[in-house]
């Protein structure tokens, strides 16, 4: 998805860059191949020729400045350069005297420079500047005394001829760039929607997995209670309720966004036991590293399960280092067999079997000891 985005951006950049190269090439080629011969081939007075040639050089300088700017990916300063070009325009028209004389390179040549300095600006700006260009030409026409209908027609044809092509290139380039930008925008939006969909699916899968973990215990107990099959006075039923509540509480804590999730989950289990009247001591030494939820589950689940069976008191300890985390629950050993049996099955069911968490559970007549230990492999 990320690569699609980059690619779309690159397409937009590439198409705009091609248009810029085209515009710069046309302007400078026209200036060299058409305007320069016109200027050299004309036989005006030496003083006028010098002024016209100087104007040609100024226009060339503006073209180079704007062209370099455009090819480096920037935009030339529109108004300053436009003003310089309009001055050049007026100077050439005045110096040539006859608007239709071959030496008047400015009429057809300057429009391409307008295109360069107004690149990517609103098309209205270009039309306004072309209008100013036409106005200067019209003033020169009137000043030279040529206002016969034939002259005016010729003038109109000139204005149309020199303006239409640059306007078409300008509008075409802008349209291409807008298309490319749209394409890039669409790709971005598509990628965002796709990412959202994947995240939502992931969240749903996580929720279902957690629900699956709980349904084995909570659902069963609740169903039995609702159907009247289980008697709330029966200690075994109560024990199953405590166990289910412990799991629910831990799974809720699991999705909380807290700095130390393992301790948060264990604290949730300890809170619940405490609320059920069990004096419990939770001592943590060291800060656990970031652990995947699977590993945390395998560390905390057997302990939470054992906690549901605890009587009299419990001591829950966590010793954590960057490469090892050991969780232990010690409770007094009571008579009779384990109510739950060693919580191996629970730990196994919660895991996918390859999380490096060891579980030890033993009773020695004095204490019951449940220990889970993760080591970095």
């Amino acid at each position, binding site marked *: 998805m990320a690569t699609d985005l980059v690619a779309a951006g690159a397409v937009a950049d590439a198409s705009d860059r091609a248009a810029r190269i085209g515009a710069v090439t046309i302007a400078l080629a026209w200036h060299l191949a058409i305007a320069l011969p016109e200027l050299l081939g004309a036989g005006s007075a030496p003083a006028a020729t010098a002024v016209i040639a100087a104007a040609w050089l100024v226009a060339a300088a503006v073209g180079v400045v704007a062209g370099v700017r455009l090819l480096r990916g920037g935009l030339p300063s529109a108004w300053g350069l436009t003003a310089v070009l309009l001055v050049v325009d007026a100077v050439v028209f005045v110096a040539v005297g006859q608007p239709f004389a071959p030496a008047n390179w400015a009429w057809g040549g300057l429009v391409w420079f307008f295109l360069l300095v107004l690149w990517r600006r609103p098309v209205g700006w270009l039309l306004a500047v072309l209008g100013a260009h036409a106005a200067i030409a019209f003033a020169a026409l009137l000043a030279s005394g040529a206002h016969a209908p034939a002259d005016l027609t010729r003038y109109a044809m000139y204005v149309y001829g020199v303006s239409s092509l640059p306007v078409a290139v300008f509008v075409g380039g802008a349209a291409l760039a807008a298309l490319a930008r749209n394409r890039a925008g669409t790709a971005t939006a598509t990628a965002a929607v796709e990412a959202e969909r994947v995240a939502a699916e992931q969240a749903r899968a996580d929720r279902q997995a957690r629900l699956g973990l709980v349904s084995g215990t909570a659902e069963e107990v609740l169903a039995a209670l609702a159907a009247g099959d289980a008697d709330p006075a029966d200690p075994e039923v109560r024990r199953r309720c405590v166990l289910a509540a412990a799991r629910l509480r831990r799974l809720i804590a699991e999705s909380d966004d807290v700095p130390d999730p393992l301790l948060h989950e264990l604290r949730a289990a300890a809170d619940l036991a405490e609320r059920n009247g069990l004096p419990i001591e939770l001592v943590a*030494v060291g800060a656990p590293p970031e652990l995947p939820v699977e590993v945390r589950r395998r560390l905390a689940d057997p302990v939470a399960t054992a906690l549901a069976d605890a009587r009299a008191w419990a001591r829950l300890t966590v*010793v*954590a280092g960057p490469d090892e985390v050991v969780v232990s629950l*010690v409770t007094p050993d009571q008579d009779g067999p384990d109510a739950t049996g060693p919580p191996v099955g629970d730990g196994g069911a919660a895991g996918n079997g390859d999380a490096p968490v060891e579980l030890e559970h033993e009773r*020695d007549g004095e204490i019951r000891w449940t220990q889970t230990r993760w080591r970095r492999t």
Partner: protein
Amino acid sequence: MDADQMAQDVTEGPPIGVAIVDDHPVVIDGVRTWLAGEPRLRVLATGDDPDAVLRAAPEAEVVLLDLRLHGRMAIDKLAELSAAGRRVVVYSEHTDPDTMLAALDAGAVAFLAKHEGREHCVATVLAAASDRPYVPPALAGAMVGDPRPDRPALSDKEREALLLWFQSMSKASVARRMRISEHTVKQYVDRARIKYTRAGRPAATKAALLARAIEDGLVRPEEIGIYRSQASTDRPTP
């Protein structure tokens, strides 16, 4: 909980003099009552100022010191007393591992958490009087979880014994779990403690602990790299 075998050896001779420094009279009274049940111990002086208490009872062999006096952590005072050879047992409700390890570094003979109860308190004071280590479970937790890069290098067995002792608070259970004798469990735990005499600045109390550990055969001199320079100034080893 576990009675301290070694401390129980100290049965002959006059009772051991204890000074209690705490700024809460109720704590002083409580500890005095605990110690009164043990004939080998006698409280000589109490108060909230270490200097005043020790002026009143300069012969006190063990000082029980509350680490937080009048709102200040008395680590400097602890270091000063330890450097002067006073056997200080720090007694505190501040049981975060950093504080415990800092107290050991400053030369405390032992660190006792206030919630750890009478047995640990009596055992710690008795052990301290004979320059022997006693590691209550909370201190074992702090040692096994010590994150400092320059922490003493403990053997796997020593770490495991500390860890299980911290978890279960029962040396008998640790012994069953590790399939060794209770005496060996205690040896592992105490050996780990002796290795901590190398951490932090040198202190007369650390040298005394180390020398006694070598005398008792708990550690061999070569296990503790720099023991000579510390121990020889205090007491020659046989």
